């Protein structure tokens, strides 16, 4: 197993940057603070489905371009998780860590 190329703090920052970009670019209001328990998708959350796919694709592209990681974030598996990986910033980061770990164990 190779050493992780990206740690949890990096991942949180990546998700937050991406979230800010997408909110800004789609003209949605930015919350005062974004942290791990910020809700992403679902009741009272920041994103609608279009903004969510945009973040997902944006994250996939950034992980590939900036970290050489080819991951599929949105697939049937992600959609069928008991706890949606898209419910909050923290859940998404957890799911990213899990995918990266699996990817690296495969090598």
């Amino acid at each position, binding site marked *: 197993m190779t050493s992780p190329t990206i740690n949890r703090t990096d991942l949180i920052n990546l998700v937050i940057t991406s979230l800010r*970009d997408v909110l800004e*670019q*789609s*003209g949605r209001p930015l919350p005062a603070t974004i942290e791990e328990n910020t809700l992403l998708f679902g009741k009272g959350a920041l994103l609608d*489905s*279009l903004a*969510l*796919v*945009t973040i*997902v*694709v*944006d994250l996939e*592209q*950034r992980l590939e*371009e900036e970290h050489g990681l080819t991951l599929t974030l*949105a*697939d*049937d598996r*992600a*959609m069928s998780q008991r706890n949606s990986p898209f419910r909050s910033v923290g859940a998404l980061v957890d799911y990213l860590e899990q995918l990266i770990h699996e990817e690296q164990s495969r090598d």
Partner: protein
Amino acid sequence: MEQWANHPAIVWHDHPYTYHDLLARMQAWKATLNEHDIGPGQVVTIEGDYSPNAVSLLLTLIERSTIVVPLTRSVAAQREEFLTIAEVQVVVSFDDDDRWHIERRPVPVTNPLTRQLIERGHPGLVLFSSGSTGKSKAALHDFLPLLEKFQVPRHRRVTLTFLLLDHIGGINTLFYTLANGGTVVAVQSRDPDVVCRTIEMHRVQTLPTSPTFLNLLLISEAYRRYDLSSLELITYGTEVMPESTLHRIHDIFPNVQLLQTYGLSELGILRSKSRDSNSLWFKVGGEGFETKIVDGVLWVRAKSAMLGYLNAPSPFDEEGWMNTQDVVEVDGDYIRILGRRSDIINVGGQKVYPAEVESVLLQMPNVKDVAVVGERNPITGQIVTARFNLFEPEDPNEFKRRVRAFCRERLAPYKIPVKITITEDEQHSARFKKMRKPW
């Protein structure tokens, strides 16, 4: 053709060849075909372009009731496959100096459609679809109904041949022009500068082309470097014209009539009339063609329709109608093409037409070209993706911001590209048609 004997019929490598010259070459071909025992019902490939020998051979082969399979270099990779599908028995290839070479292939004709045509004793034409999505299909035509419409005299014009002999549009331009005593001007490449230089040099009046080429013409600004005052008519077809491209062309050529054409290799070219030069609304139909719209999709029935595909099931229903797969909007007698049904992107149940999004994106600074396609996504079913060619390199994240900001004021949110990539590859085919391949 004799009535125009001394008038140039074709210009090839910048040299004019008269109708008289073509007739003389046809005489010579008759002798050569006899010598090689090439007669009615044989399947013959012409591998070449609009050279005097190739064009006169095409005319002679039609007169002799053979089945002609024109091929060009742009399909070199599929040459063997195409020769096999069409059961080609003779290949006549032309080199850059218009010298020819005859190759025999010991193949029997077994395809029932081809045999049916041979029994009729009529000449035939086989055209391959470009196959940008999936396998190329071979359309077999009875050549006589295709040529029938050229009996009606129309304008005599100097016309550039943008599409090649292996395309229904190229065949249409050639026969329209020759039937009316005009001049067909061949170009050696479809580089905008070469095309513009040729227009200037031979005082070309008609330019049949594609939206992709017109977009390249705008980008290259080649129109500034040549005298294009001879141009009277630009026709465009084969794909959806981005509205922004049409308006810019109209601004640059205010006195040139802009006409949208419509045709399919399965049906021939319909007659069409644009509402005006700045409009994407147009009427299609004309003698020998009937049209109807079913669930927003255009269907056509044509006298000049092909007999069928040599390598695929018939696309015609029992009454001879063909679903063109082109989704249209209707306003009285006029229609506007929105896109191929298969190109439509479905984002969470809402339809997105790639051409509309491309038309907006093409107006962005530093954007040279863009192809919009759908990609599967489990959240919204499909997402809109856009692949760009840029003039100057840009930081991808910065560029994404710019694209989304630009789109926000101009497109509904579900039409805004979710995935944005930048490529160095050209995004059009050898026939100057946009490729919307998934990546």
